[in-house]
């Protein structure tokens, strides 16, 4: 089973890298950009065949390592 974990910064957490990307897009002439937030995508292959069990395991991985829940949210997609 393949899964994709998306880690994003929580609202209210300043994202200097997103801001820099926003500035660079503006410099390239892309207008109308409200804001840019940068996150991470982590693809994981699991031996698990049960979807619920896989989600539980991935959620545990996110809490323990993949995301820092002080500043980040995570989202799990089973692919």
């Amino acid at each position, binding site marked *: 089973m393949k899964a994709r974990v998306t880690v994003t910064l929580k609202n209210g957490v300043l994202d*200097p890298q997103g801001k820099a990307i926003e500035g660079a897009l503006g410099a390239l002439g892309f207008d109308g950009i409200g804001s840019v937030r940068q996150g991470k995508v982590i693809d994981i292959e699991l031996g698990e065949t049960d979807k619920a069990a896989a989600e539980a395991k991935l959620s545990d991985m996110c809490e323990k390592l993949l995301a*820092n829940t*002080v500043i980040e949210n995570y989202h799990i997609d089973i692919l």
Partner: protein
Amino acid sequence: MKTAILVFPGTNREHDMAAAVRSVSGKDPMMVWHAETEIPEADLIILPGGFSYGDYLRSGAIAARSPIVADLLEKAKQGVRILGVCNGFQILTETGILPGALMRNAGLTFICKETKLRVERDDTIFTSSYKKGQVMRCPVAHHDGNFFADDDTLKMLEDEGRVLFRYCDAAGEASAEANINGSRNNIAGIMNARGTILGMMPHPENLIEDLHGGLDGRGLFESLLEKVA
């Protein structure tokens, strides 16, 4: 008085830290590799600076899940003194031993220079050799030193007097201009509620001898090593 310095793959300031400990206490610290499961009996545990695991995932994130960390958590609970500097501070926040997180510097650049810090308290085991309000010089070298905590956590840290160092200007003003990396409330270093654990981004171990160009960092080691002796 025994000091243990934890070493992770990518740690690179352990010898600076050892030199500081040796210079102030006259005793050699023990170096403890991250793959160990037990920290030898020590009065002080230091997590030095560097780039553990290449800062992969998040600075300090992988190191914070090393085998040695289970015992670090236990020792923290027992009240053993712990000092985390730079990457060591990042690791302490990643383990949850200290609150908040260290994010990318607001200006996005790696900052390697001397800064000024205002000492907020002189009644802690870390700062007893300084005077409250004193402005000290201290070098920094980091990319992810932008201290973030949510409003409630920040209020708790301030209300409980747990902020020990703030970035400031020469007059001791914690101004926006002096805030080198965008840290909330200019925070450069915080301690735990019991006052036994300090995490800070600047490097006091790099200003402890005349050859360094100053002795401002020495007070921290004198405070600490005297208190745990």
